[in-house]
């Protein structure tokens, strides 16, 4: 067992890659490929459960660390680690993995082994991105991720798939190039590619601004932050369902994760300088995304724009620079992963049956497909942040954290504007729901559409259960990330930074036992 548990992060990351390789080489029958991919994804989920149950929530530093010198006398290392923030995102990824594969059972009939191989390859790259603590390693995972997604959109996508795939590719590449320059600059300063060595580099004010801008651009494109979002609706509309689900549920979170892990702790001056502007972009994204979503004639495009709005909330929470807002942002990432993932799955269900996603083609579907309508309704409510479901907790923490922020300029005004997103969210979602499901069944083509199959229910039900579970028991996530959020935010207030040297325990920003940290300020300066 210890062969696995001592290198658990490697196993979790590379098991899907191994599966992918086998799909290219050995498992070549369509039906075998499906089962095989599902088994691999399930096995990966089971492996990741080990992380969940053995994670020590009281610590804010990395756990399950694996560090092996790799290149240039260890200046570059194979360094994997996992804190609470990585943990919850990894769990989201491995949880959705098998469900996504199961959802493609009937939808993908062309070059099945290749498709499954790309999906597993993508999963491996995403997991590696969340674990990597060496910047080169991170950059490799980050870039490699593009390839399977590019092919998933470009080969199994809709009519304009090439345009969308290339757009997706080039957008992300452009941002990454700037980040690469930043990484190289830091490498020459630190003499290593290790994140924790980067954290100890004393950077000048000006350098911090430039570096922050370079990193932020790369991450902002991925999120996407307004006005860098126009690749997203195209990518979503053209991508096959499975691609859209992974894209919305996990891939977009890479951008947020990158900000949180790298751009924010590394460049506190950059954060302070740019936070007001970024929060304005975030608020614009919330309102603009919602308004544009409202007028979309295509359901999938509507959901895509709703992501721009939701992710605007997350960015606002991050740059409120309060533990509450940041934790709310992380929570929303999970909640959005579930609700938007489920929305894309549901849109896929109807697309498989009718080969259209135009709202005007539907109406009265609740008559023909009551179970589908019920799942869609629950997911709609999760998406609009109904209290008692996961989305509400995240939104509430973000808005409350931003409202109480003492660092962010015009925090109260920002909160007021952002809160209008709560109203707009209800408008675009419920209006869409009404036009698709209510009214008379006018369109003859919709008569006799089969309701959800057992397989489709099996895909959706676990997600729906977690929408409720996390809404009632948010501690499931919050307890895991609380200490890590404090650690990540510590450098922003001149607090101690984290090192990966076991001898430096004193420098860890761990919560003092028995005392609750204030949620609106990064560190309680009175207690220092």
């Amino acid at each position, binding site marked *: 067992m210890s062969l696995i548990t001592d290198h658990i992060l490697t196993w979790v990351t590379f098991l899907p890659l191994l599966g992918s390789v086998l799909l290219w080489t050995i498992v070549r029958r369509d039906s075998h490929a499906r089962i095989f991919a599902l088994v691999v994804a399930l096995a990966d989920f089971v492996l990741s459960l080990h992380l969940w149950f053995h994670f020590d929530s009281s610590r804010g530093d990395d756990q399950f660390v694996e560090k092996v010198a790799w290149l240039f006398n260890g200046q570059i290392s194979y360094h994997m680690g996992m804190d609470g923030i990585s943990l919850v995102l990894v769990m989201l990824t491995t949880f959705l993995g098998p469900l996504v594969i199961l959802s493609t059972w009937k939808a993908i009939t062309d070059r099945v082994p290749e498709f499954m191989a790309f999906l597993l390859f993508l999963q491996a790259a995403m997991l590696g991105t969340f674990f990597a603590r060496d910047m080169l390693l991170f950059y*490799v995972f980050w870039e490699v991720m*593009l390839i399977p997604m590019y092919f998933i959109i470009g080969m199994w996508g809709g009519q304009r798939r090439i345009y969308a795939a290339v757009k997706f590719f080039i*957008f992300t590449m452009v941002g990454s190039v700037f980040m690469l320059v930043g990484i190289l600059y830091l490498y020459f300063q630190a003499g290593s590619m290790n994140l924790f060595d980067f954290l100890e580099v004393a950077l000048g004010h000006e350098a911090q601004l430039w570096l922050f801008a370079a990193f932020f651009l790369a991450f902002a494109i991925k999120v996407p932050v307004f006005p860098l979002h*126009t690749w997203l609706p195209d990518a979503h509309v053209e991508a096959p369902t499975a691609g859209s689900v992974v894209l919305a549920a996990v891939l977009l979170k890479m951008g947020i994760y990158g900000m949180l892990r790298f751009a924010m702790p590394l460049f506190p001056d950059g954060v302070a300088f740019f936070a007001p502007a970024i929060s304005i972009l975030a608020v614009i994204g919330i309102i603009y995304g919602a308004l*544009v979503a409202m007028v979309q004639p295509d359901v999938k495009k509507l959901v895509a724009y709703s992501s721009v709005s939701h992710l605007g909330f997350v960015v606002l929470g991050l740059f409120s620079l309060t533990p509450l807002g940041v934790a709310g942002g992380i929570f929303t990432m999970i909640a959005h992963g579930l609700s938007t993932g489920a929305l894309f799955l549901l849109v896929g269900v109807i697309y498989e049956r009718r080969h259209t996603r135009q709202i005007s083609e539907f109406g009265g579907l609740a008559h023909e497909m009551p179970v589908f309508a019920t799942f869609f309704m629950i997911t709609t409510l999760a998406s609009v942040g109904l209290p008692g479901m996961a989305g509400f907790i995240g939104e*509430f923490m973000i808005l409350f954290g931003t409202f109480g922020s003492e660092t962010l300029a015009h925090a109260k005004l920002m909160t*007021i504007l952002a809160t209008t997103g709560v109203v707009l969210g209800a408008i675009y979602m419920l209006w869409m729901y009404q036009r698709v499901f209510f009214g008379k069944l006018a369109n003859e083509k919709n008569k006799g559409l089969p309701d959800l199959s057992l397989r489709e229910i099996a895909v959706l039900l676990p997600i729906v259960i977690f929408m409720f579970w996390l809404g009632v028991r948010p501690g499931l996530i919050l*307890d895991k990330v609380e200490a890590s959020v404090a650690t990540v935010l510590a450098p922003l207030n001149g607090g101690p930074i984290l090192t990966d040297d076991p001898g430096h325990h004193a420098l860890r920003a761990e919560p003092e036992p028995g005392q609750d940290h204030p*949620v609106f300020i990064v560190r309680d300066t009175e207690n220092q």
Partner: protein
Amino acid sequence: MESHATESLLRWIVLVPLLAAAVGGLLNRRLPKQVAGLLACGAVGVSFALSVTVFLRLTRMPAAERFVSDTMGTWIGFGNLQIDLGFTMDPLSGVMALVVTGVGFLIHIYSLGYMAHDEGFGRFFAYMNLFIFAMMTLVLGENMLMLFVGWEGVGLCSYLLIAFWFNDEANAAAGKKAFIVNRIGDFGFLLGIFLIGTTLLPHLAEGEGLFSFRTLQHHAGIMAPVATAICLLLFLGATGKSAQIPLYIWLPDAMAGPTPVSALIHAATMVTAGVYMVARMNFLFVLSPTAMGVVAAVGVVTAIFAATIALTQNDIKKVLAYSTVSQLGYMMLACGVGAFGIAIFHVMTHAFFKALLFLGSGSVIHAMSNEKDMRVMGGLKKKLPITFWTFLIGTLALAGIFPFAGFFSKDEILWKTFSSELGGVLPWALGFLAAGLTAFYMMRLVVLTFFGENRASAEVKSHIHESPATMTMPLVILAVLSLVGGWIGWPHFMGGGAWFEQWLAPVFSSGHGAAAHGAAVHGAAAGEAVHDTMMEWILAGASLAWGLIGLGVGYFVYMKKISIATSLRNLGGGVPYKILLNKYYVDEAYEGTFIRPGYLLSKNVLWKIVDAGLIDGLLVNGSALVVAITGSVLRLFQNGMVRFYAWSFTIGVTVFVLYLSFSG
């Protein structure tokens, strides 16, 4: 914090209807109708019985200590933010619990008959039980966020039940409108919560639950400097839920739902949630005379505004809907003048007689083969005797005729408005005027529906019949309550003990302590008015006489001299009538100022010009084009060469990494 009794029964008051909703909803059509109906009614019955049990326990406690709680652990715990998942019952929530589960139970029974032939029977009862769950969470929630869970939950059930017959898209639109208008209110409510939280959090001791009502009350003084802002934000939420100006517009449309829903949700319980919330937060509202003034003004203006619209409506349910808006205005008026106890008293009596009136109208609609237009009704007195007599009792109660329930609560509101420092002669006069209009439009409704000749088609006429016992029995019980239900508030000047107000006094008197902190509203907090017995008698007499006059005039005009109605309609060239009939064109104004321009702006400017044109067209594809001219990206686009590049990238990276690995 002082220790208090725990009562683990509390959670089951809330959870039993939830479980029943889940079972009923999941099994839905697989459940025979009898079983589904029994399950749903049984769940609410259990909830009612448990509420009574806990309520009786409260009565046995000393007045100042009437408080039980049931905590199910932490809901949101992060840093020093601590929000519990818990329920409490004090005299105020106790009364609300009894009203909600009691009236709710009767309406569930009634629905057995009313919905008997509906194919969505199981779904209907699942939603109804879900509603009881949400409403009880709202009422019994231990803190503001739990209240908000219930608050949005009842909004959801309202949405689902208004759109219950979704075949007709108008119903679906009405449901959506209700949800969205309520969300506009919630926008304010949320900001109010944030302002409370940020103000209070730094002052809390270890383990004190933020947003817990006990904590808020205990630290009300800290919030005094921002009390006006907090209260106005919260009140925006209340105007949404309790259908006050400017957010009342959803309630009349909500009548698209099945009539038991109109009775339960849109008359007796959910719409009073705003009033309940203001009363619950009384310790903050009394800190801000400005906020109290706004509450009172909005309340009284809504009361008279909606009453004028009710004068002209032809749909029997629309008349009752505007009447509800108007009566909710009275409740807000009571809160605004500091008479929170009386406001809750009116919540209760109104729940009795308005539920009765709606269920009665349901019985009429049932008999008339789903006809709602009063112009084709008439003469139903003989054919629907139980419905008629119970309806008449409800009408007398609503018109405020002694000794029916509405007399006691409405008269007290008018008296407190007249005598309180926060009230005055003008708000009293407006309230008084509205009371007369109420009596008039109710008599118009009764005459048009029950008196004279039946104006329906022969086909419809032949089907007219009294409703089954499951429907008439709740009518009779509610009629009894509409008669005697007000007597527990028999006022002092008439030799009573105003027991209802006394029961609630511990909840509202604590406002004094907070008021001393903020030194805001003197004495008005507990509705301590100048005791002028003589004046009270005079006003009560006047208001009774005024109600009788309203009824009399209504009867005379519509029964004896219909020509008066016709000439009233043609008054001023028919313009005033047309304005009232079209509800002052408020919906059209919102449509023209917000909805339509918002849609067009989003579609034509934001999406087509900004997003597709400016950002994507000019910036993104424009820069791609520039690159294409200098380089050859565009050619690569078209040849599918990017695929080749991606492969090169993959292979390149792999080779690079392998090379470095083995050479390093």
